[in-house]
């Protein structure tokens, strides 16, 4: 992605969708929703893990559409398949059955190098375990996606520092992860997720390891990114976290029970339990 500073939408987001808008905008705007505008489009996706004779159906019959600029929370108990779903959405894994189209492109048809390219350009990850490299300073961690994008070094550093500034860590850029608190580490990984200005941000229980203050910080950052037009999929098992999203899908035992392929969920389905 050759976008300069944050907030400039990627090429595949049309101008009228790129501006800041509220979740309500999203849920009412695109009821017309032509197929090719959906950024995520899963049809009858299944994922079976096979270890020896043991088979685990982690996902079954998952059909899901996420429009650009949407903010979707996926809720479910532990072991329900949330992470599996995120790995598939993030092109880290491929479905066993069904089709997954990312911005209209069939992910199943892509090879490893192509998938790596897509992850690099279009997706920003925020993991529960932070997944920062312990030997690198904060800004070196943040610049990593830009290294693989082939961005020249001076520009990388400038963009990494700017991203760290956005998450409020301008004074911690030279710190190693073990010199930062959990909340600060997660903010570094949010900076890393947004530094390439991806259109999609996938967060797998990003607040799972954080205290309430840090949780609020990270959620505020995600909301800000959403307001700038990014599509966000947030995975969590906490209600108050899910409340942040424009809409909520529930997953249980590998099956997505809410937030079906109806793109316009009337209300942000939070706190329904």
């Amino acid at each position, binding site marked *: 992605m050759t976008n300069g500073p944050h907030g400039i939408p990627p090429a595949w987001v049309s101008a009228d969708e790129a501006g800041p808008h509220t979740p309500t905008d999203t849920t009412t705007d695109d009821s017309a929703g032509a197929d090719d505008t959906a950024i995520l489009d899963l049809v009858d996706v299944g994922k079976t893990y096979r270890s020896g004779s043991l088979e685990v159906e982690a996902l079954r019959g998952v059909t899901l559409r996420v429009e650009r600029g949407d903010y979707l929370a996926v809720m479910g108990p532990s072991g329900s398949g949330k992470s599996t779903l995120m790995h598939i959405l*993030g092109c*880290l894994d491929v479905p066993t059955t069904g089709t997954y189209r990312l911005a209209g492109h069939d992910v199943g048809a892509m090879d490893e190098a192509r998938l790596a390219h897509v992850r690099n350009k279009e997706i920003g990850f925020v993991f529960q375990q932070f*997944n920062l490299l312990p030997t*690198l300073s904060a800004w070196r961690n943040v610049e990593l996606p830009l290294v*693989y994008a082939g961005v020249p070094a001076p520009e990388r550093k400038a963009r990494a520092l700017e991203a760290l500034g956005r998450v409020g860590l301008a004074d911690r850029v030279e710190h190693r992860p073990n010199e930062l608190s959990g909340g600060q580490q997660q903010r570094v990984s949010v900076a*890393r997720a947004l530094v390439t200005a991806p259109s999609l941000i996938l967060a797998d229980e990003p607040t799972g390891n954080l205290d309430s203050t840090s949780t609020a910080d990270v959620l505020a950052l995600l909301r800000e990114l959403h307001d700038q037009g990014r599509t966000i999929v947030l995975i969590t098992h906490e209600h108050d976290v899910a409340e942040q999203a424009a809409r909520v899908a529930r997953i249980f035992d590998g099956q997505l029970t809410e937030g079906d392929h109806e793109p316009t969920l009337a209300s942000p389905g939070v706190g329904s339990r």
Partner: protein
Amino acid sequence: MSWWETVRTAYDAIRTRRMRSALTVLGILIGIAAVMLTVGLGQGAQQQVASQIDKLGSNLLVVTPGSTTSFAGLRGGRGSATTLTTGDAAMLADPAIAPDIAAVAPASTSQQSLVANGTNWTTSVVGTTPAWVSVRARSIDQGRFFTATEVTNASPVAVIGATTASQLFGSRSPVGSTVGVGGVQFTIIGLLNTEGSTIGGDQDDQLVIPSTTFANDFGNGSGASVSTIYVEGKSADTLSAAYQETSNALLSTHGVSANSADFTVSSQASLVQTATSTAHILTVLLGGIAAISLLVGGIGVMNIMLVSVTERIREIGLRKALGATPSVILRQFLVEASMLGLVGGVLGLALGFVGALTLPSILGQPVSMSMLAAGLALVVSLVIGVVAGVYPASRAARLAPIDALRSE
């Protein structure tokens, strides 16, 4: 990801695991230094032998009694058989029989105790003719060599080597003094130039006397027999003709066929070849053992890279999630492995050069080091790194990003 970026990442990874990287590098370092030093020692020995043989003179043929053509056989035959005579030498000196031969010197050798000045010294006494000086490419420092007349008359005159002279006379000039050999008094008429050691022993420690005098006083009864005939060819170009003439003339006078020849003709080249081939076998053997240590070093690199891949499985997964393609990961681990190899190679090279400078004074053996060997050592260490890295790197590259991320 640029090459520079890859190298920096690899360097970071190596630096982070300092101790382990240092031990891995040590394996390559020792291997490279061992190979360089053993091969250097072997080549030094080869060059030493070759340069000693060179001193014999390039147009020289050496005829010795004995029927084998091998170097060992030649040595075994020397002095033990008595098939060569002064007559053979005289015949070879005839230009009508051997037109490509410039000069011929028969020589017999005997270990004798020399007495002069109240001092004893045991050395080899050589009985020969005046042609010996030119055939053996020697010169006279003081006095003169003996003449043909003195040979005919079996005069008790001697020419002395520099080492022998200093043992018997100290720094005093030996010319004009007498030396007693087996009860016979010899007048020293000349002092040989210093020559150093050759394949035949210390050329400065000997006493050279007329062949006739030798036969009278130290001969084994068959007065005409000699232990060696030195033949000097007219030029290096016609040496093979001189070789044929020598061989054919001796075969016909001895009345034997080539298969049952009772003598051996060796050229300087053939002496160099047999002597250096012995040194060469030694070099290959020692070098082979050293190469095995280098191989072990390479296995060490592979082992450490495999451990590294297993240990960094999460890092690999994360890098892939952030956009590293399999080929970028492959390259990163290959570069890391080859950097370990190359650093080991450079340090091993340095150790090799230090060894090449210090070992000769400790072992008394020359160590030959060439830029070619140095360059080769670097290339080999790099190749070892790459080869050792291929398997671990391809494992890292093949890791599914998700399996790598999930592992905890």
